[in-house]
Protein backbone atom coordinates (compact mmCIF):
# COMPACT_ATOMS: atom_id res chain seq x y z
CA UNK A 1 0.00 0.00 0.00
CA UNK A 2 1.40 3.33 -0.91
CA UNK A 3 1.90 5.66 1.97
CA UNK A 4 0.15 8.95 1.90
CA UNK A 5 2.70 11.63 2.11
CA UNK A 6 1.68 14.67 3.98
CA UNK A 7 3.27 17.83 2.82
CA UNK A 8 6.02 18.54 5.30
CA UNK A 9 5.60 21.93 6.90
CA UNK A 10 8.16 23.65 8.98
CA UNK A 11 7.20 23.11 12.67
CA UNK A 12 8.38 26.50 13.69
CA UNK A 13 6.07 29.35 14.54
CA UNK A 14 7.11 32.91 14.50
CA UNK A 15 7.28 33.80 18.14
CA UNK A 16 8.24 37.42 17.81
CA UNK A 17 4.77 38.89 18.47
CA UNK A 18 4.39 36.61 21.46
CA UNK A 19 7.68 37.76 22.84
CA UNK A 20 6.67 41.37 22.28
CA UNK A 21 3.47 40.91 24.18
CA UNK A 22 5.17 39.09 27.00
CA UNK A 23 7.74 41.84 27.31
CA UNK A 24 5.05 44.46 27.66
CA UNK A 25 3.17 42.47 30.30
CA UNK A 26 6.34 41.67 32.17
CA UNK A 27 7.49 45.28 32.19
CA UNK A 28 4.10 46.40 33.41
CA UNK A 29 4.06 43.88 36.21
CA UNK A 30 7.59 44.67 37.24
CA UNK A 31 6.89 48.37 37.44
CA UNK A 32 3.59 48.16 39.27
CA UNK A 33 4.37 45.37 41.66
CA UNK A 34 4.40 45.70 45.37
CA UNK A 35 5.27 42.43 46.89
CA UNK A 36 2.58 40.79 48.93
CA UNK A 37 3.84 40.02 52.37
CA UNK A 38 3.00 36.60 53.65
CA UNK A 39 1.21 36.80 56.96
CA UNK A 40 1.84 34.33 59.77
CA UNK A 41 -1.87 33.55 59.95
CA UNK A 42 -4.49 33.79 57.22
CA UNK A 43 -6.63 36.86 57.74
CA UNK A 44 -9.86 37.56 55.91
CA UNK A 45 -10.50 41.23 56.31
CA UNK A 46 -14.12 42.38 56.51
CA UNK A 47 -15.73 44.60 53.90
CA UNK A 48 -16.55 48.26 54.11
CA UNK A 49 -17.43 51.07 51.76
CA UNK A 50 -14.46 53.17 52.78
CA UNK A 51 -12.20 53.92 49.85
CA UNK A 52 -9.37 55.51 51.73
CA UNK A 53 -6.13 53.76 50.94
CA UNK A 54 -3.85 52.59 53.68
CA UNK A 55 -0.87 54.81 54.47
CA UNK A 56 2.34 53.50 52.97
CA UNK A 57 4.80 54.24 55.70
CA UNK A 58 4.84 54.98 59.42
CA UNK A 59 2.31 52.36 60.34
CA UNK A 60 2.11 49.74 63.00
CA UNK A 61 -0.31 46.94 62.38
CA UNK A 62 -1.97 44.73 64.93
CA UNK A 63 -3.07 41.53 63.28
CA UNK A 64 -5.86 39.57 64.92
CA UNK A 65 -6.37 36.09 63.58
CA UNK A 66 -9.46 33.93 63.62
CA UNK A 67 -8.10 31.80 66.47
CA UNK A 68 -7.55 34.87 68.68
CA UNK A 69 -3.82 35.13 68.22
CA UNK A 70 -2.36 38.60 68.06
CA UNK A 71 0.55 39.61 65.86
CA UNK A 72 2.32 42.90 65.54
CA UNK A 73 4.20 44.61 62.76
CA UNK A 74 5.73 48.01 62.15
CA UNK A 75 7.78 49.50 59.39
CA UNK A 76 11.04 51.29 58.97
CA UNK A 77 9.45 54.65 58.31
CA UNK A 78 9.60 56.47 55.01
CA UNK A 79 13.16 55.38 54.38
CA UNK A 80 14.98 52.29 55.52
CA UNK A 81 17.83 54.58 56.57
CA UNK A 82 15.81 55.53 59.65
CA UNK A 83 16.16 51.96 60.99
CA UNK A 84 13.03 52.34 63.11
CA UNK A 85 12.48 48.62 63.27
CA UNK A 86 15.87 47.97 64.79
CA UNK A 87 15.52 50.85 67.21
CA UNK A 88 12.13 49.64 68.36
CA UNK A 89 13.53 46.15 68.86
CA UNK A 90 16.39 47.41 71.02
CA UNK A 91 14.01 49.63 72.94
CA UNK A 92 11.73 46.70 73.76
CA UNK A 93 14.77 44.53 74.48
CA UNK A 94 15.93 47.00 77.12
CA UNK A 95 12.65 46.58 78.95
CA UNK A 96 12.99 42.82 79.07
CA UNK A 97 16.78 42.77 79.66
CA UNK A 98 17.59 41.41 76.24
CA UNK A 99 20.42 42.67 74.10
CA UNK A 100 20.65 42.04 70.40
CA UNK A 101 23.74 41.76 68.26
CA UNK A 102 23.92 44.06 65.22
CA UNK A 103 23.49 40.97 63.06
CA UNK A 104 20.25 40.07 64.82
CA UNK A 105 18.94 43.61 64.50
CA UNK A 106 19.72 43.52 60.80
CA UNK A 107 17.92 40.21 60.40
CA UNK A 108 14.91 41.58 62.22
CA UNK A 109 14.80 44.67 60.04
CA UNK A 110 14.78 42.51 56.96
CA UNK A 111 11.86 40.40 58.16
CA UNK A 112 8.87 41.94 56.40
CA UNK A 113 5.75 40.45 57.91
CA UNK A 114 4.03 40.37 61.26
CA UNK A 115 5.34 38.42 64.19
CA UNK A 116 3.69 37.33 67.39
CA UNK A 117 5.52 35.47 70.07
CA UNK A 118 6.53 36.03 73.67
CA UNK A 119 9.56 38.32 73.66
CA UNK A 120 11.61 35.56 75.29
CA UNK A 121 11.38 33.64 72.02
CA UNK A 122 12.33 36.46 69.73
CA UNK A 123 16.03 35.64 69.62
CA UNK A 124 15.31 32.10 68.53
CA UNK A 125 12.83 33.49 66.04
CA UNK A 126 15.33 35.89 64.49
CA UNK A 127 18.10 33.35 64.32
CA UNK A 128 16.16 30.55 62.73
CA UNK A 129 15.62 30.37 59.01
CA UNK A 130 13.24 27.48 59.13
CA UNK A 131 9.63 28.43 58.37
CA UNK A 132 8.30 25.46 60.37
CA UNK A 133 10.29 26.47 63.40
CA UNK A 134 9.07 30.05 63.07
CA UNK A 135 5.51 28.81 62.93
CA UNK A 136 6.05 26.76 66.04
CA UNK A 137 7.43 29.76 67.92
CA UNK A 138 4.38 31.80 66.93
CA UNK A 139 1.71 29.29 67.78
CA UNK A 140 0.59 31.24 70.84
CA UNK A 141 0.74 34.73 69.40
CA UNK A 142 1.79 37.74 71.39
CA UNK A 143 0.81 37.79 75.08
CA UNK A 144 -1.73 40.52 75.78
CA UNK A 145 -3.10 39.68 79.20
CA UNK A 146 -2.72 42.25 81.91
CA UNK A 147 -0.02 40.33 83.79
CA UNK A 148 2.28 40.10 80.79
CA UNK A 149 1.17 42.73 78.34
CA UNK A 150 3.90 42.63 75.75
CA UNK A 151 1.80 44.18 73.00
CA UNK A 152 1.59 47.31 75.15
CA UNK A 153 5.40 47.36 75.47
CA UNK A 154 5.81 47.08 71.71
CA UNK A 155 3.27 49.84 71.07
CA UNK A 156 4.92 52.04 73.65
CA UNK A 157 8.37 51.48 72.13
CA UNK A 158 7.07 52.08 68.61
CA UNK A 159 5.48 55.34 69.67
CA UNK A 160 8.60 56.47 71.49
CA UNK A 161 10.92 55.75 68.59
CA UNK A 162 8.62 56.98 65.86
CA UNK A 163 6.07 59.53 67.12
CA UNK A 164 4.47 59.80 63.68
CA UNK A 165 3.47 56.16 63.65
CA UNK A 166 -0.20 55.37 62.97
CA UNK A 167 -2.06 52.38 64.26
CA UNK A 168 -3.77 49.95 61.93
CA UNK A 169 -5.85 46.99 62.94
CA UNK A 170 -6.15 44.10 60.59
CA UNK A 171 -8.61 41.66 61.99
CA UNK A 172 -10.18 38.54 60.63
CA UNK A 173 -13.92 38.80 60.07
CA UNK A 174 -14.46 35.96 62.49
CA UNK A 175 -12.19 37.21 65.23
CA UNK A 176 -14.18 37.27 68.47
CA UNK A 177 -15.10 40.67 69.84
CA UNK A 178 -13.50 40.35 73.30
CA UNK A 179 -10.04 40.04 71.75
CA UNK A 180 -10.64 43.03 69.51
CA UNK A 181 -11.90 45.00 72.49
CA UNK A 182 -8.79 44.03 74.45
CA UNK A 183 -6.53 45.25 71.65
CA UNK A 184 -8.46 48.51 71.39
CA UNK A 185 -8.17 48.95 75.15
CA UNK A 186 -4.42 48.41 75.06
CA UNK A 187 -4.05 50.95 72.27
CA UNK A 188 -6.19 53.44 74.15
CA UNK A 189 -4.20 52.90 77.30
CA UNK A 190 -1.17 53.97 75.31
CA UNK A 191 -3.09 57.07 74.18
CA UNK A 192 -3.74 55.90 70.67
CA UNK A 193 -7.26 56.99 69.90
CA UNK A 194 -7.16 57.08 66.14
CA UNK A 195 -7.12 53.78 64.33
CA UNK A 196 -7.29 52.58 60.82
CA UNK A 197 -9.24 49.40 60.39
CA UNK A 198 -7.99 47.58 57.34
CA UNK A 199 -10.89 46.45 55.18
CA UNK A 200 -11.70 45.35 51.68
CA UNK A 201 -13.65 47.62 49.43
CA UNK A 202 -17.25 46.62 49.02
CA UNK A 203 -19.60 48.00 46.44
CA UNK A 204 -22.77 48.99 48.17
CA UNK A 205 -25.58 50.98 46.84
CA UNK A 206 -25.90 53.95 49.10
CA UNK A 207 -29.37 55.31 49.17
CA UNK A 208 -29.09 58.71 50.71
CA UNK A 209 -31.77 59.77 53.12
CA UNK A 210 -35.12 58.68 51.88
CA UNK A 211 -37.19 61.63 50.71
Amino acid sequence: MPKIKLPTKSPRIDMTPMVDLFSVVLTFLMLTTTMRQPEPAPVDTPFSVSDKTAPEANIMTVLISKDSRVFFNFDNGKDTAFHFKGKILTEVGKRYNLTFTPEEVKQFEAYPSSFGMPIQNIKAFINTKDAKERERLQEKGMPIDSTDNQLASWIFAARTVNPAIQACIKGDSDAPYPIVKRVLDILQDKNVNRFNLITNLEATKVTLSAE
Partner: protein
Amino acid sequence: MGEIIQEEKSKGGKKRPKHHSTHIDMTPMVDLMCLLITFFMLTTAFSKSKVMEIVLPEKIKKNDKVEPPKIAESRTINIILGPENKVFWYPGRVKDSKNPPALQETDYSDEGIRKILLDRNKLLSKKVAAFKEQTTKENPAITRDSLLANIKRFKKADDSGPIVLIKAYKEARYANIVDIIDEMEICSIVRYALVDINYVEDEMVKTAMARSTSNPKQ
Protein backbone atom coordinates in the same frame (compact mmCIF):
# COMPACT_ATOMS: atom_id res chain seq x y z
CA MET B 1 14.40 22.83 18.97
CA GLY B 2 17.47 22.86 16.85
CA GLU B 3 17.94 25.16 13.99
CA ILE B 4 18.27 23.47 10.65
CA ILE B 5 20.53 25.45 8.52
CA GLN B 6 20.41 24.53 4.94
CA GLU B 7 23.64 24.91 3.25
CA GLU B 8 24.15 24.87 -0.39
CA LYS B 9 26.59 22.27 -1.41
CA SER B 10 29.16 23.75 -3.65
CA LYS B 11 30.32 21.52 -6.33
CA GLY B 12 33.58 23.04 -7.11
CA GLY B 13 36.40 23.68 -4.76
CA LYS B 14 35.33 27.27 -4.68
CA LYS B 15 34.41 28.40 -1.20
CA ARG B 16 31.24 30.33 -0.77
CA PRO B 17 30.38 32.36 2.32
CA LYS B 18 28.00 30.44 4.59
CA HIS B 19 24.43 31.47 4.37
CA HIS B 20 23.14 31.88 7.93
CA SER B 21 19.50 32.00 8.67
CA THR B 22 18.26 35.23 10.27
CA HIS B 23 16.04 33.31 12.67
CA ILE B 24 16.90 33.20 16.32
CA ASP B 25 15.32 30.51 18.38
CA MET B 26 13.18 32.36 20.88
CA THR B 27 11.71 29.41 22.73
CA PRO B 28 13.97 29.61 25.81
CA MET B 29 13.27 33.31 26.04
CA VAL B 30 9.54 32.72 25.92
CA ASP B 31 9.87 30.04 28.56
CA LEU B 32 11.72 32.37 30.86
CA MET B 33 9.25 35.19 30.32
CA CYS B 34 6.35 32.89 31.05
CA LEU B 35 7.93 31.96 34.34
CA LEU B 36 8.61 35.56 35.31
CA ILE B 37 5.12 36.69 34.42
CA THR B 38 3.60 33.91 36.46
CA PHE B 39 5.81 34.80 39.39
CA PHE B 40 4.94 38.48 39.29
CA MET B 41 1.27 37.82 38.82
CA LEU B 42 1.16 35.64 41.88
CA THR B 43 3.16 37.90 44.13
CA THR B 44 1.63 41.20 43.13
CA ALA B 45 -0.86 42.78 45.46
CA PHE B 46 -2.84 44.65 42.86
CA SER B 47 -5.23 46.53 45.03
CA LYS B 48 -3.85 48.40 47.96
CA SER B 49 -5.79 47.57 51.04
CA LYS B 50 -8.35 50.10 52.12
CA VAL B 51 -8.70 51.48 55.58
CA MET B 52 -11.55 52.76 57.61
CA GLU B 53 -10.58 55.41 60.05
CA ILE B 54 -12.18 55.54 63.45
CA VAL B 55 -11.47 57.90 66.26
CA LEU B 56 -12.49 56.73 69.68
CA PRO B 57 -13.19 59.19 72.45
CA GLU B 58 -10.34 59.46 74.88
CA LYS B 59 -10.58 57.10 77.78
CA ILE B 60 -11.31 58.63 81.11
CA LYS B 61 -8.69 57.31 83.45
CA LYS B 62 -9.74 56.55 86.99
CA ASN B 63 -7.70 59.26 88.66
CA ASP B 64 -8.75 61.97 86.22
CA LYS B 65 -11.39 64.24 87.69
CA VAL B 66 -13.43 64.49 84.54
CA GLU B 67 -17.11 63.79 84.37
CA PRO B 68 -18.20 61.62 81.48
CA PRO B 69 -20.10 63.74 78.97
CA LYS B 70 -23.82 63.99 79.48
CA ILE B 71 -26.01 63.08 76.59
CA ALA B 72 -29.68 63.60 75.93
CA GLU B 73 -31.72 60.49 76.49
CA SER B 74 -34.23 61.28 73.76
CA ARG B 75 -31.52 61.28 71.12
CA THR B 76 -29.86 58.09 72.21
CA ILE B 77 -30.13 54.82 70.35
CA ASN B 78 -28.40 51.76 71.72
CA ILE B 79 -27.33 49.20 69.21
CA ILE B 80 -26.26 45.85 70.54
CA LEU B 81 -24.35 43.53 68.26
CA GLY B 82 -25.55 40.07 69.12
CA PRO B 83 -24.34 36.60 68.22
CA GLU B 84 -25.12 34.99 64.84
CA ASN B 85 -25.04 38.34 63.02
CA LYS B 86 -28.08 39.64 64.82
CA VAL B 87 -28.51 43.26 65.78
CA PHE B 88 -30.65 44.45 68.63
CA TRP B 89 -31.56 47.99 69.42
CA TYR B 90 -33.56 50.04 71.84
CA PRO B 91 -33.97 53.77 72.27
CA GLY B 92 -33.15 55.78 75.36
CA ARG B 93 -31.71 54.02 78.35
CA VAL B 94 -32.62 51.32 80.82
CA LYS B 95 -34.53 53.06 83.60
CA ASP B 96 -35.51 50.08 85.65
CA SER B 97 -33.04 47.23 85.64
CA LYS B 98 -35.75 44.84 86.89
CA ASN B 99 -37.95 45.56 83.93
CA PRO B 100 -35.76 46.46 80.97
CA PRO B 101 -37.24 47.62 77.66
CA ALA B 102 -37.67 44.94 75.02
CA LEU B 103 -34.95 44.69 72.45
CA GLN B 104 -35.93 44.97 68.84
CA GLU B 105 -34.21 42.65 66.49
CA THR B 106 -32.97 43.63 63.07
CA ASP B 107 -30.07 42.83 60.75
CA TYR B 108 -27.23 44.43 58.83
CA SER B 109 -29.09 44.70 55.55
CA ASP B 110 -30.36 47.83 53.80
CA GLU B 111 -33.83 47.22 55.13
CA GLY B 112 -32.63 46.53 58.64
CA ILE B 113 -30.46 48.78 60.71
CA ARG B 114 -29.83 51.23 57.88
CA LYS B 115 -33.48 52.09 57.59
CA ILE B 116 -33.74 52.75 61.29
CA LEU B 117 -30.66 54.93 61.32
CA LEU B 118 -31.67 56.91 58.25
CA ASP B 119 -35.08 57.43 59.75
CA ARG B 120 -33.57 58.78 62.96
CA ASN B 121 -31.17 60.93 61.03
CA LYS B 122 -33.79 62.45 58.75
CA LEU B 123 -34.12 65.72 60.61
CA LEU B 124 -30.40 66.32 60.54
CA SER B 125 -29.97 65.38 56.91
CA LYS B 126 -32.79 67.74 55.97
CA LYS B 127 -31.07 70.51 57.87
CA VAL B 128 -27.78 69.70 56.18
CA ALA B 129 -29.41 69.79 52.76
CA ALA B 130 -30.98 73.18 53.55
CA PHE B 131 -27.67 74.48 54.84
CA LYS B 132 -25.90 73.30 51.71
CA GLU B 133 -28.42 74.99 49.48
CA GLN B 134 -28.17 78.21 51.42
CA THR B 135 -24.38 78.24 51.34
CA THR B 136 -24.22 77.61 47.63
CA LYS B 137 -26.79 80.31 47.03
CA GLU B 138 -24.92 82.88 49.09
CA ASN B 139 -21.59 82.01 47.64
CA PRO B 140 -21.90 80.30 44.26
CA ALA B 141 -18.14 80.25 43.74
CA ILE B 142 -17.46 78.16 46.82
CA THR B 143 -15.08 75.28 46.27
CA ARG B 144 -16.17 71.76 46.96
CA ASP B 145 -13.62 71.33 49.72
CA SER B 146 -14.64 74.34 51.71
CA LEU B 147 -18.29 73.45 51.24
CA LEU B 148 -17.61 70.03 52.69
CA ALA B 149 -15.67 71.58 55.56
CA ASN B 150 -18.56 73.94 56.25
CA ILE B 151 -21.03 71.09 56.27
CA LYS B 152 -18.80 69.17 58.62
CA ARG B 153 -18.69 72.12 61.01
CA PHE B 154 -22.44 72.51 60.74
CA LYS B 155 -22.96 68.86 61.61
CA LYS B 156 -20.64 69.09 64.62
CA ALA B 157 -22.51 72.07 66.01
CA ASP B 158 -25.90 70.52 65.45
CA ASP B 159 -27.78 68.93 68.30
CA SER B 160 -30.72 67.20 66.70
CA GLY B 161 -29.07 64.13 65.23
CA PRO B 162 -29.11 60.81 66.99
CA ILE B 163 -26.40 59.65 69.34
CA VAL B 164 -25.64 56.04 68.65
CA LEU B 165 -24.10 53.90 71.33
CA ILE B 166 -22.64 50.73 69.88
CA LYS B 167 -22.30 47.87 72.28
CA ALA B 168 -21.10 44.43 71.43
CA TYR B 169 -22.22 41.24 73.08
CA LYS B 170 -19.34 38.89 73.85
CA GLU B 171 -20.18 36.55 71.01
CA ALA B 172 -20.08 39.26 68.34
CA ARG B 173 -17.50 39.00 65.59
CA TYR B 174 -15.02 41.59 64.37
CA ALA B 175 -16.88 41.88 61.07
CA ASN B 176 -19.99 43.01 62.96
CA ILE B 177 -18.17 45.99 64.40
CA VAL B 178 -16.76 46.96 61.05
CA ASP B 179 -20.20 46.59 59.50
CA ILE B 180 -21.88 48.79 62.06
CA ILE B 181 -19.22 51.51 61.91
CA ASP B 182 -19.52 51.34 58.15
CA GLU B 183 -23.23 51.80 58.52
CA MET B 184 -22.61 54.95 60.57
CA GLU B 185 -20.51 56.25 57.70
CA ILE B 186 -23.17 55.38 55.12
CA CYS B 187 -25.96 57.00 57.10
CA SER B 188 -23.68 59.94 57.96
CA ILE B 189 -24.31 59.66 61.66
CA VAL B 190 -22.21 62.31 63.34
CA ARG B 191 -22.13 61.05 66.88
CA TYR B 192 -21.47 57.47 67.70
CA ALA B 193 -19.32 55.66 70.20
CA LEU B 194 -18.23 52.17 71.04
CA VAL B 195 -19.35 51.52 74.58
CA ASP B 196 -18.96 48.56 76.89
CA ILE B 197 -22.02 46.44 77.30
CA ASN B 198 -23.40 46.38 80.82
CA TYR B 199 -24.87 43.59 82.87
CA VAL B 200 -28.52 44.49 82.30
CA GLU B 201 -28.05 44.63 78.54
CA ASP B 202 -26.25 41.32 78.65
CA GLU B 203 -29.33 39.78 80.22
CA MET B 204 -31.55 41.54 77.70
CA VAL B 205 -29.64 39.97 74.84
CA LYS B 206 -29.95 36.55 76.45
CA THR B 207 -33.74 36.85 76.77
CA ALA B 208 -34.03 38.19 73.23
CA MET B 209 -31.95 35.30 71.92
CA ALA B 210 -34.07 32.79 73.81
CA ARG B 211 -37.18 34.37 72.39
CA SER B 212 -35.95 34.35 68.83
CA THR B 213 -34.87 30.71 69.02
CA SER B 214 -38.16 29.57 70.52
CA ASN B 215 -40.17 31.03 67.65
CA PRO B 216 -37.81 31.49 64.75
CA LYS B 217 -40.59 32.74 62.48
CA GLN B 218 -40.75 36.05 64.30
